[in-house]
């Protein structure tokens, strides 16, 4: 019998890559999809990839989606790996969502409020019937347009804050934590947690947020407000001394309002959970807000017993790039360790068999 090396090597890798590229293209009789088509027509995928890849660039995100054959976690990974090589020119000022250009803004806690409810582009009230007209190709009618309402739309805590019914913002001039440059330690500060959640896996956060609704760390949430729109991004170069607008960024923001029974030092008031993601991503923003609030349990003097309230559990496991890497690394060869396990289990079985033989011998005597 000849020794067969079951090993990869350079040629196997090259051939595998060529095969993959061929498979990605699919049947060449079908027209190739362009990144512009992906960016324009698969916007939710692109938004999700930008959020979890934590880089705002629809063009690159569309390229990542194409390169990853529509595998959104793989696409987010491509974007992250690119992001890590980029130089940092400046940090922006905090974005001001109170003055953003609103495309959609709804509150579940008021029938109406200053600025009004704006339904915007949403699937919320569509009937989920497969639309066969789309399959044939379909040119929609242009949406009706109104003049943009330039009046600032107050946020939920601006409305409830006057009575002290809801916790106020805690303004801070401290340099924010940067999870892409600094290793996390626990307990983690809220800025570090929010950064982790903002690029955390949508599915994981959805499940965690959902678990709080089903009694695993419940906090009686209400959607204070969801707003979707474009926010101005500004930097303030030290040599200029004033802020300059470098562009607009589409974001989705969710303010969740939660009950709080009060503590010895604080009277009862509403507390908040916060979610903010790139692009249009209401599910993610809401889940993030639920989880953010759940993770504040210790800070608010609540007993932290549920998984969603456990910082280490949530933050360490919400990153799908880390998770997919470590889960999938099990595909790598582990035969050296497996060999040591084989030897150990053989030894243990030999010990056990000897013992059993000894016992049956004794029983026979």
């Amino acid at each position, binding site marked *: *019998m000849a*020794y*067969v*090396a*079951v*090993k*990869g*090597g*350079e040629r*196997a*890798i090259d051939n595998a890559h060529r095969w993959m590229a061929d498979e990605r293209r699919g049947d060449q009789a079908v027209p190739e999809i362009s990144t512009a088509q992906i960016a324009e027509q698969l916007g939710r995928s692109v938004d999700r990839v930008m959020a979890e890849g934590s880089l705002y660039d629809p063009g690159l995100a569309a390229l990542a989606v194409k390169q990853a054959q529509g595998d959104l976690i793989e696409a987010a*990974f491509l974007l*992250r*790996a690119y*992001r*890590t*090589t980029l*130089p940092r020119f400046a940090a922006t000022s905090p974005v001001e969502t109170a003055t953003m250009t609103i495309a959609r803004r709804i509150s579940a806690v008021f029938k109406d409020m200053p600025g009004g409810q704006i339904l915007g582009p949403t699937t919320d009230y569509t009937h989920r019937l497969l639309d066969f007209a789309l399959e044939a190709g379909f040119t929609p009618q242009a949406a009706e347009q109104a003049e943009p309402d330039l009046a600032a739309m107050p946020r939920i805590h601006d409305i409830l804050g006057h009575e002290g019914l809801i916790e106020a913002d805690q303004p801070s001039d401290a340099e924010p934590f940067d999870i*892409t*440059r*600094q*290793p*996390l*330690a*626990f*307990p983690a500060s809220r800025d570090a947690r929010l950064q982790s959640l903002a690029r955390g896996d949508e599915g994981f956060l959805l499940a965690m947020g959902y678990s709080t609704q089903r009694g695993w760390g419940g906090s009686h949430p209400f959607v204070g407000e969801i707003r979707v729109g474009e926010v101005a991004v500004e930097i303030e170069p030290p040599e200029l001394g004033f802020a300059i607008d470098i562009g607009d960024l589409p974001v989705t923001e969710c303010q969740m309002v939660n009950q709080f029974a009060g503590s010895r030092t604080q009277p009862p008031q509403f507390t908040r959970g916060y979610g903010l993601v790139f692009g249009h991503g209401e599910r993610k923003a809401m889940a993030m807000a639920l989880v953010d609030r759940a993770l504040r349990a210790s800070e608010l003097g609540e007993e932290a017993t549920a998984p969603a309230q456990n910082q*280490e559990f949530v933050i*360490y496991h919400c990153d799908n*790039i*880390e998770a*997919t*890497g*470590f*889960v*999938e*690394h099990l595909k*790598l*060869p*582990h*035969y*050296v*360790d497996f*060999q*040591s*396990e*084989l*030897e*150990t289990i053989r*030894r*243990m079985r030999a*010990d056990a068999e000897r013992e059993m033989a000894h016992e049956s011998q004794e029983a026979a005597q």
Partner: protein
Amino acid sequence: MNGYNFAYLDEQTKRMIRRSLLKAVAIPGHQIPFGSREMPLPYGWGTGGIQVTAAVLGADDTLKVIDQGADDTTNAVSIRRFFARTAGVATTTHTAEATIIQTRHRIPEEPLREDQIIVYQVPQPEPLSKLEPSRAETKRMHGLSEYGLMHVKLYEDITRYGHVSISYDYPVMVNGRYLMAPSPIPAFDNPKMDMMPALQLFGAGREKRLYAVPPYTKVASLDFDDHPFRTTRAPQVCGLCGSGVSYLDEVVTDDKGGRLFVCSDTDYCETRRAEGHAGTELAA
């Protein structure tokens, strides 16, 4: 490679990693948190080891990369290519020729020298992780040198099985102070770490930790006086080079229980064969 810095990472990042490595060398076996970067290879594929190698690699270094002891496993090939492409350094498969050896799951059979660095890829830097999931808690335990939990685990193994059941990633005490995960090398390799002349660096990218064992540092595998640490290997000799002391892979040759045992360290095996040693498989 066009558009990328030498060895991929930018100089500031490499400096940050080197500073963390200096700390790690100064406190042998102690885990140093570092600002681990996203790499173009997936987490779990050696991102920690790659960052450490990138930080210590110079243009005149010769790099060897092994996975499971072999130079030609796909992941070893991929990482070796990564540095050949981004740093343009010389690469080798010969342990003796390498100045830096990046490894996953093995220490080469050939003893390493003072002028060599071995970089381990580490999936889980926390040796207590299977006993205590919270890092806040294990950090405290390390601070207090409170390792009773691990001794209890070993003791329970001995009472249940008659010996310790850990066969790889077998915990070690470094310099008599810190409990350390040697990375998932077989326990067979643990004794090689003790008083090793080469600098040993460990990188865990996903967990964002670095640690180190400086040259000639005591590394003791945990045991009890009446149950001393023992290594295991398959009792066979290598079918290709006839070595009776190397760590062996068990290759399944048919579905009737046929097995071939060969050295896991491919360079060691090839060197021996070049020297004229032959196992039963080659002699036949």
